[in-house]
């Protein structure tokens, strides 16, 4: 079919999709499989129709469904269809698509839990409203038989509802009690169960007060908090999973029968794998054949490529730049250097896990206090009334209900949902539940250089001395190569409107450069040593036209977007800023000067970085570490809170609390401010709850609380804290 080309290819594809819908949907009897594709840039109705319609038209595709919220497509296909083919096809017609590793995505399992919570919430809401309706009738004066009937109907609704909806709390409370601990769910469960039992007894005795509505609204509000909390985490988790699933760990294994694609987990020591130019080295190993250059920046921070040939030791995560190589595996999977780095991380992480969140701190004071208060009220009234168990129990239940931990159960998740939702919109993904609170405490920021402050992509410097003819020849040579310098040169030359010269017999000399024939002369573009040129002190490639003096094209790593804004924003907040890199001093000093960081360190080993961060931490600083490489992972884990860009290695992203989803560093400055105001809101909510309890508890202790007062107070406090949390959304 013809491929429509326009600014919005989806718009052209939409009518086509309508005509072709249905084709290819039917299966052919074979066992099918399910493919997930990530579609990061779809946004409109026409995009959905375009992707679904065009996919359905492909051979072997049975059904395709786009989820715009997750920006993902689920495709049911015949077993012989390769995900890569579909992704490439979609990218080709204008919908950027990436294959996702379905094994990394557990969203279906988590989804079930979300649905389960939502179902319980719905049932609790339904029951609460109906019982509240009946309770209003009782409060407004229903007496005798009418009141009893209303109470019995309420009981008939409340008992099954509590049995279903409150299970969440009962289960969690039971788990805690069994190991001899107290958690928030213990007083919650106790309040719900006691209120229910007490009300049943009162109803049977034709008593005046029943707390069915209170037990139900307690369940409803707390479940709402639980669901919000769950949603925030599942959004973060599914986005984090997607980042991981984008890197499908595959390797090309050489066998007697030829190359076969296998997952990295299947590789064994002694296997030979092929690493093509542009690919990441999947294992630790030794080069057997092939000459190339390696980009080690993710491991060491070095910005210059390193030459590699037979017997060179290579590590997981390095990128092969110029020539194809075969590598003999010396360590794969759990033994590889990537995983050894993880050991360093594990030690640092235990320290961080000890961080207790504000909610936990509050719960630690709250749970025992409530129990003591209720028990105290029960005993005191037993003594005052001279042994009236019914009255004493009534008051104890009122105390338990009045002290409802709505502020803890609803207000913290409400604030974190609002705040992390806003950060997500700005391109920051909070992976850890306590990341926000830790971010709010930061007073020192440590940056990595390559790939963090810079894009890790060299850009060719403008140089007036370059002759057009040289550029034309260089462009002709560079065009066919996938070396980053060649790519950048091609881009820069094209942007200047340079037309490639007529160069014949262009071929790449692995590990050295590119060679060709121009006007009968040999022309070369590549490393200084190869051309006999004098190397300049920065990243550069050289062009020699036989006979003439080699010309140098220099490159500078471009800064990530909005780095200056982020750093000046952090400085304005009075934070100390340090730049640490494994790169050579000259390169680090240059970047430090450009972004205005006066405190920098070069030539730092991974251990050195972690040690520096740990030392800052010991001296009382709260350190935020921003880094992307394998050499940063230990430091990321040692810091109080850590951020890595989405382009970082998976190992670095895993230990980070926050992932920057976009290319820009801009959200960084605002994020700390946001975290501070979110933490302030949480504290305010605690204050609101404490203030309300300060009034309500004495009333309950004196035995003056009625179910109406309890219902009013509970709803009011819940609504107040939620509204306070919503203020975050505005600013």
């Amino acid at each position, binding site marked *: 079919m013809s491929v429509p080309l326009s600014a919005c290819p989806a718009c052209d594809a*939409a009518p086509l*999709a*309508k005509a072709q*819908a*249905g084709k290819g*949907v039917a299966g052919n009897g074979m066992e099918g499989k399910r493919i997930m594709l990530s579609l990061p840039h779809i946004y*409109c*109705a*026409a995009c*959905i*129709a375009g992707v679904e*319609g065009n996919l359905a038209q492909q051979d072997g595709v049975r059904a395709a469904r*786009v*989820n*715009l*919220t*997750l920006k993902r497509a689920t495709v049911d296909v015949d077993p012989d269809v390769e995900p890569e083919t579909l992704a490439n096809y979609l990218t080709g017609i204008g919908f950027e698509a990436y294959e996702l590793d379905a094994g990394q995505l557990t969203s279906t399992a988590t*989804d079930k839990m979300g*649905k389960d919570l*939502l*179902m319980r919430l*719905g*049932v609790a809401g*339904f029951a609460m*409203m*109906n019982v509240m*309706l*009946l309770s209003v009738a009782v409060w407004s004066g229903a007496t005798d038989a*009418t009141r009893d009937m209303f109470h019995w*109907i309420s009981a008939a*609704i409340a008992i099954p509802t509590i049995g279903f909806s409150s299970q969440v709390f009962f289960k969690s409370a039971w788990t805690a009690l069994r190991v001899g601990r107290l958690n928030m769910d213990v007083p919650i469960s106790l309040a719900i169960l006691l209120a229910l039992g007490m009300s049943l007894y009162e109803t049977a005795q034709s008593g005046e007060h029943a707390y069915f509505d209170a037990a139900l609204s307690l369940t409803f509000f707390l479940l709402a908090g639980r669901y919000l909390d769950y949603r925030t985490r599942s959004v973060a988790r599914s986005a984090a999973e997607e980042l991981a699933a984008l890197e499908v760990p595959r390797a090309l294994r050489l066998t007697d029968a030829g190359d076969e694609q296998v997952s990295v987990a299947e590789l064994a020591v002694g296997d030979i794998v092929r690493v093509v130019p542009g690919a990441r080295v999947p294992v630790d190993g030794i080069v057997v054949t092939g000459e190339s250059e390696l980009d080690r920046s993710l491991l060491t921070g070095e910005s210059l490529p390193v030459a590699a040939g037979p017997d060179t030791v290579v590590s997981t995560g390095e990128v092969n730049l110029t020539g194809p190589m075969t590598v003999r595996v010396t360590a794969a999977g759990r033994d590889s250097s990537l995983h050894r780095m993880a050991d360093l991380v594990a030690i640092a992480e235990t320290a961080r896990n000890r961080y207790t969140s504000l909610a936990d701190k509050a719960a630690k004071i709250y749970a025992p206090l409530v129990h003591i208060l209720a028990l105290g009220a029960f005993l005191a009234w037993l003594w005052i009334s001279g042994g009236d168990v019914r009255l004493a129990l009534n008051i104890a239940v009122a105390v338990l209900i009045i002290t409802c931990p709505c502020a803890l159960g609803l207000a913290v998740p409400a604030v974190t949902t609002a705040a992390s939702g806003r950060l997500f919109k700005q391109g920051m993904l909070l992976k850890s539940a306590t990341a926000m609170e830790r971010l709010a405490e930061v007073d020192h920021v440590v940056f990595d250089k390559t790939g963090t402050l810079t894009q890790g992509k060299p850009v060719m410097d403008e140089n007036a001395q370059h002759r057009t003819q040289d550029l034309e020849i260089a462009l002709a040579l560079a065009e066919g190569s996938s070396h980053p310098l060649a790519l950048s040169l091609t881009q820069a030359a094209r942007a200047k409107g340079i037309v490639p010269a007529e160069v014949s017999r262009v071929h790449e000399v692995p590990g050295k450069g590119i060679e060709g024939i121009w006007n009968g002369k040999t022309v070369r573009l590549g490393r200084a040593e190869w051309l006999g040129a004098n190397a300049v002190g920065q990243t550069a490639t050289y062009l020699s036209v036989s006979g003439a003096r080699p010309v140098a094209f220099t490159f500078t790593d471009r800064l990530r977007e909005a780095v200056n804004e982020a750093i000046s924003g952090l400085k304005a907040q009075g934070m100390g800023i340090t730049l640490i890199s494994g790169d050579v001093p000259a390169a680090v000093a240059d970047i430090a000067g450009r972004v205005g960081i006066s405190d920098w360190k070069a030539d730092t080993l991974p251990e050195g970085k972690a040690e520096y961060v740990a030392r800052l931490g010991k001296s009382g600083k709260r350190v935020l570490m921003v880094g992307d490489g394998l050499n940063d992972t230990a430091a990321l884990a040692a810091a109080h809170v850590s951020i890595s860009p989405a382009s970082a290695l998976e190992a670095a992203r895993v230990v980070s609390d926050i992932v920057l989803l976009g290319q820009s560093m801009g959200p960084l400055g605002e994020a700390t401010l946001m975290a501070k105001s979110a933490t302030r809101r949480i504290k305010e909510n605690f204050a609101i709850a404490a203030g309300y309890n300060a009034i309500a508890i004495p009333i309950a202790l004196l035995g003056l609380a009625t179910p109406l007062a309890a219902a009013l107070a509970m709803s009011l406090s819940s609504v107040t804290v939620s509204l306070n949390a919503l203020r975050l959304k505005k600013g």
Partner: protein
Amino acid sequence: MNVLVYLIPISLLLGGGGLAAFFWTLRSEQYDDPDGNSQRILSDRWDDRPPEE
């Protein structure tokens, strides 16, 4: 007060109807893709007949 005999069951039935509808929306995965659903109504793809399941 005899009217209560009708009114209470009616209110419970109506509420229960709402709850059943909520269950149905939940079971048929109508909350999975809120952004997509709001966009899909703009497409005329299934205007003539619904897709075959």
